[in-house]
């Protein structure tokens, strides 16, 4: 596991590598049940608990948790759903609201002390969400625009010279129906992974130069590591929310493109 947990093993500084994203099973023999899996369940339960506390018995005049829940709901509705989906917003709010909160709490685990692991930095979690969105978008597009029109509407935008369609059609086909769904997952995964890696690096610097090997020359470097860890943690909190927002926003955009021909 992480070198941070075995500080006395070596006198030399080692930057944490991709190994910090690999987790052994928590229960012997159950390879799938590792820390990210436990966090995924915990995060799901937290989202359910929060939504239940806020919305199980909604009052006309909101009190307590319901205020917070409505704040989150209205943020998703006004900033994610309405700009993309317009009057279809209310129909897709259950998915978008759940997705925003689910992704956010998964990301947030990266900055919660003792947990400190963003679940979305394991590609499988964003991937399954992106695949789900892809399946949904394909279904909606074929249902609303027809099995051929759905593709040709995107591949042959009107008003271009004929020869350029030889170029545009394959690019649009690949980018709209495959690439943007792949990047949908990778964007979230990569930002979470990079953020976690950088924070792990600066934490390791602080730990190594201030505790493992305290030297007059190394101490300032260690202090810098600690300061950077604090600053980057604050930055990560912002990125975590931003990526959850972007993930839900793109989902809304893809759904709208499937419901209505883009051009």
């Amino acid at each position: 596991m992480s070198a941070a947990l075995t500080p006395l093993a070596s006198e030399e500084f080692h930057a944490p590598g991709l190994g910090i994203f690999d987790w052994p099973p928590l229960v012997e023999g159950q390879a799938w049940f590792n820390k990210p899996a436990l966090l995924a369940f915990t995060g799901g339960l937290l989202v359910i608990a929060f939504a239940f506390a806020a919305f199980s018995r909604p009052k006309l005049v909101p009190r307590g948790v319901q205020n917070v829940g409505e704040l989150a709901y209205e943020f998703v509705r006004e900033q994610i759903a309405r700009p993309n989906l317009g009057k279809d917003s209310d129909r897709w709010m259950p998915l978008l609201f759940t997705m925003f909160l689910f992704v956010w709490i998964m990301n947030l685990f990266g900055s919660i002390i003792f947990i400190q692991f963003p679940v979305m930095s394991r590609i499988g979690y964003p991937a399954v969400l992106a695949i789900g969105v892809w399946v949904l978008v394909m279904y909606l597009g074929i249902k609303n625009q027809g099995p051929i029109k759905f593709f040709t509407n995107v591949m042959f935008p009107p008003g271009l010279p004929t020869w350029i369609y030889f170029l545009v059609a394959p690019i649009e086909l690949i980018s709209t129906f495959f690439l943007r769904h792949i990047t949908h997952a990778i964007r979230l995964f990569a930002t979470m992974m990079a953020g976690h890696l950088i924070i792990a690096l600066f934490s390791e610097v602080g730990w190594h130069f201030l505790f493992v090997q305290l030297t007059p020359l190394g101490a300032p470097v260690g202090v810098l590591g600690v300061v950077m860890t604090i600053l980057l943690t604050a930055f990560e909190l912002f990125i975590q929310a931003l990526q959850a927002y972007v993930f839900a926003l793109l989902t809304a955009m893809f759904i709208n493109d499937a419901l209505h021909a883009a051009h």
Partner: protein
Amino acid sequence: MYVLAAEEASNPLVPNVAEMVVGGFAFLVVLFIVGRLLVPRIQKTLAERVDAIEGGLKRAADAQEEAQRALKQYRDQLAEARHEASRLREEAREQGAQIKAELREEAQAEARRLIEAAHAQIEADRQQAFAQLRTEIGRLSVDLAGRIVGESLEDEARQRRTVDRFLEELEAGNSAAVR
């Protein structure tokens, strides 16, 4: 080299099927409970709140309109009452003036009547006094003449004629002087 390098066999870009199942399952459970059961409740509540607010606004507008109507009615009544009052005042003034005129008329008539009565009384008194005086003067004159002349004018008829002549002369002279 790094101790953990050996464990870094897995490519971070290749999704692990187990965690996709875990993530998908967790998300679907959350989607069902939150998206299917809880979000519709808050959507319903938000819609009801919009209704309540819009209903409240409508009720307020209705009340406003009602108040405006009542105010207008009140103002109309007030104007009508003012108009009525001024009409009554005018009428009363007219009546008062009429009554005053009548009273003045009556008083003047009464005064005239009194003055006339007084004049008549005075005239009567004067006549009476005049007649009395005439008799008295006659008697006195006869007495005086009798004394002066020394003879008694016993002859009644003559006596009277003499006196009457005298008095007529006196009267003629007197009235000529008065005129």
